[in-house]
């Protein structure tokens, strides 16, 4: 592996989580290592049944916009979030869940898709990953 990408997934918005996984999978496909650090609203997407439940960051219109985008994505043959996460894990991508967010929001491990999560950590874990990275983004 050459190079590393580390992304903080702070937003739980569907479109932003999709961006995070597209960049993550793109980096893995280039032969890079990738770590996604899920914190605050982003962590909701790691809840059981929560992956594609995020609103759109714009034009959500009480979920109407979100449904429309999903339909258009399917029509354009864009992979679903679930299959993006499966590809991400299959190619060796790493997911870290923020422990502080779990505490603040009262989220327990039992509520999360633990099969996707490699590590539970705090800011030190992120910085330690990011300092060795070539690309780091906050989404």
């Amino acid at each position, binding site marked *: *592996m*050459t*190079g590393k990408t580390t992304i903080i997934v702070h937003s739980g918005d569907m479109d932003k989580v999709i961006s995070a996984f*597209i960049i993550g*999978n*793109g980096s*893995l*496909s*280039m*032969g*890079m290592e990738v770590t996604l650090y899920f914190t605050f609203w982003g962590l909701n997407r790691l809840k059981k049944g929560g992956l594609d439940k995020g609103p759109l960051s714009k034009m959500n219109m009480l979920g109407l916009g979100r449904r429309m985008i999903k339909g258009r994505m399917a029509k*354009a*043959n*864009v*992979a679903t979030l679930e299959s993006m996460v499966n*590809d991400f894990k*299959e*190619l060796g991508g790493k997911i870290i869940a923020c422990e502080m967010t779990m505490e603040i929001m009262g989220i327990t491990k039992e509520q999360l898709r633990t099969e996707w999560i490699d590590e539970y950590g705090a800011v030190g874990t992120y910085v330690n990953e990011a300092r060795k990275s070539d690309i780091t983004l906050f989404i």
Partner: protein
Amino acid sequence: MAQINLDCRHQNCPVPLVQVRKALKRAAVGDTIEVVGTHSASKKEIPMAVEAQGQELLEVKDQGQEWVIRIKKVKEG
């Protein structure tokens, strides 16, 4: 020396790239991968990914509305 054939026609970003990476992981050194697709950005990006991974790009050609890319796995990784 086996050949792996990938059909990525009508697949969108970043699926063709991801499929090539998966194929490179499961191929043995010396194997070739032939991928056919229609997504135009992938035609440029698959060669970039092959180079970034230090593998060998054998051929990029157009076939009507489709493109065909041939890659050889020359090393592990």
